[in-house]
């Protein structure tokens, strides 16, 4: 059996705040189990504050888990267990902030290689030209500065920089959200093609369900730090089985069932029972008393007491 690139087991992150006599605990990520295979993209959607970026940072070994473990290629990773250099990469939302404005595109792109060492400057620049070519930018871009490029070109540079060390796993955190609609699809297609060629595993984090389901193989929906639903992407083109997934699809599908529209805002999280129950039009008494766990329902796993009914509605 194939070893997953990322194997997260019962991983959780919580932060404490406030003075020691009145500590508040915030659960950014609640016990989450997720595997990502090589060549597979998991699309992670959720509203702001749902913990999707924290989960991405966990998978990069940048935050320590307060419970559970994240394994990269069977090895434990975290701030105290540094992952092998160059094997994990990230592409962030805003390429203006991700690229150093004082470095040329060429030096930005080959910077990760100089950190790894082992290569001469000429070799590094040859490599930079090769990856820039992969992302559709010709050799003339090597000497240019970020301010001379358009948003789409900058994001291509950021992807080239993420790709140059041939990582096994890449996190795309809102990687296309800052781009215009007509350019967004160019970058999404690029990500799909590169993954096909290089076989890296990927976590594509976004609040935009439409863009995410277009690049992903499997989708994970997060609310208040917990996975609400996870399943093959086809499920999210049709009738997903969690009310929250269905509510998110109202904004993009013309035929979506508008009766799933949520009340209130994402700051309203129930502390007992189902975290969504205060906002969910489908909540019943059981949602208050019993917290739904992820259940295997054929196509995917859903954390909802009424998943079967939701899937039919």
């Amino acid at each position, binding site marked *: 059996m194939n070893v997953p690139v990322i194997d997260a087991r019962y991983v959780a992150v919580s932060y404490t705040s406030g003075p020691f006599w009145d500590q508040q605990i915030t659960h950014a990520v609640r016990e989450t189990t997720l595997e990502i295979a090589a060549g597979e993209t998991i699309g992670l959607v959720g509203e702001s504050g749902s913990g999707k970026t924290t989960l991405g940072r966990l998978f990069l070994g940048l935050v320590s888990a307060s419970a559970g473990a994240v394994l990269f290629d069977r090895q434990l990773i975290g701030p105290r267990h540094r992952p092998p250099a160059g094997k994990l990469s990230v592409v962030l939302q805003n390429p203006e902030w991700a690229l150093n404005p004082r470095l040329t595109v060429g030096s930005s792109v080959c910077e990760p290689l100089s950190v790894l060492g082992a290569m001469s400057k000429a070799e590094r620049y040859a490599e930079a030209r090769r990856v820039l070519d992969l992302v559709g930018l010709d050799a003339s871009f090597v000497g240019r500065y970020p301010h001379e490029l358009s948003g789409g070109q900058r994001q291509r540079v950021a992807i080239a920089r993420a790709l140059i060390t041939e990582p096994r796993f890449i996190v795309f955190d809102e990687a296309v959200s800052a781009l*215009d*609609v007509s350019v967004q699809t160019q970058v999404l297609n690029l990500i799909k093609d590169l993954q096909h060629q290089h076989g890296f595993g990927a976590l594509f984090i976004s609040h935009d369900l439409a863009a995410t*389901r277009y690049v992903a193989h499997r989708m994970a929906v997060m609310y208040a730090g917990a996975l609400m639903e996870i399943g093959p992407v086809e499920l999210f083109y049709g009738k997903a089985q969690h009310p929250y997934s269905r509510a998110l699809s109202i904004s993009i*599908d013309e035929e979506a069932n508008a009766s799933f529209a949520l009340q209130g805002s994402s700051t309203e999280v129930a502390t007992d029972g189902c975290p969504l129950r205060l906002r969910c039009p489908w909540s019943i008494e059981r949602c208050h008393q019993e917290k739904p766990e992820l259940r295997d329902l054929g196509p995917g796993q859903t954390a909802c007491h009424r998943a079967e009914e939701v899937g039919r509605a």
Partner: protein
Amino acid sequence: MSMLVEAADLTIEYVTPRGRVRALDGADIALPTGASLGLVGESGSGKSTLGMAMGKLLPGNAHRVAGNLHVDGQSVFEIDDDALTKLRRHRLGFVFQNPMSALNPTARIGLQVAHAMGKKRPDEQASALLRHVGLADEGRILTAYPHQLSGGMAQRVVVAMAIARGPAILIADEPTASLDASIRGQILDLLTSLKDETGMALVLLSHELAVVARHCDMIGVMYGGRVVEYGTSKQVFADPVHPYTQALLRAAPGRERPGERLSPIPGAPPVLTGPSAGCSFAPRCPAKIDLCRHVRPLPRSVAGRLTLCHRAEETVDQPAVQEKVCEP
């Protein structure tokens, strides 16, 4: 029919240290009373400039080069300051992208709402106004500061302030861009229901064609500082005529089948420094002919809507041209 907003060949340039940038390059639009118009375009297409020009809320470096804009029967670029103040205060309402920067962080919501209503302090009418925009807990909200509200609640407060004096036109510039996906629908539904109730016109600026199509009667698609296609939502969304609208609908994720590959529009949107010689979409257009490069298309009525395309009749009659658009 009298038009509430009428722009004719409106051309606006921004003077920057690096030269002039043309934001509007001869935009035409006509909005009847009580209708809702969605202006759709990518960043740099000129939709915000057109929307803000309706209240002459443009920065100091913006200059009108040509054309005219009439709002509520008055030419906004020619009336004096008093008339402009009256127009803004009594006839227009604005809702901006980020409610937190639209509200004064140092004043309680009640005071800000009262000022928007032209009063010294909040009263029963202020509470009623907040209830009207769907804020049930109005007692707490009136005494709260903006940072104590969630984004969705703050945007409702901004909407309440915008409609406080019963404007004839409500202009909303990306009112949901800074809000979470599940709140967006609530705010847009609120705007359209207020429009239906009060009979005011609604101008919604957005980059999402599908969202605008669901909430507005009319759609104006903007590209390169001009309105390239203008018609009812149904016409424009279901059966677009302009190659840009067609390409945009094919490129955006959301309507594809699982596993289907989308065809992006090649290249990037233009940044104009002067008048575009021909059609500004020509460099990216799969249906372009020589004429498109040299002759500016004029608005023509094709299949029930206005469009700026030399080949509009052909794209309607010959599906072959439409098919060509979807090739990469």
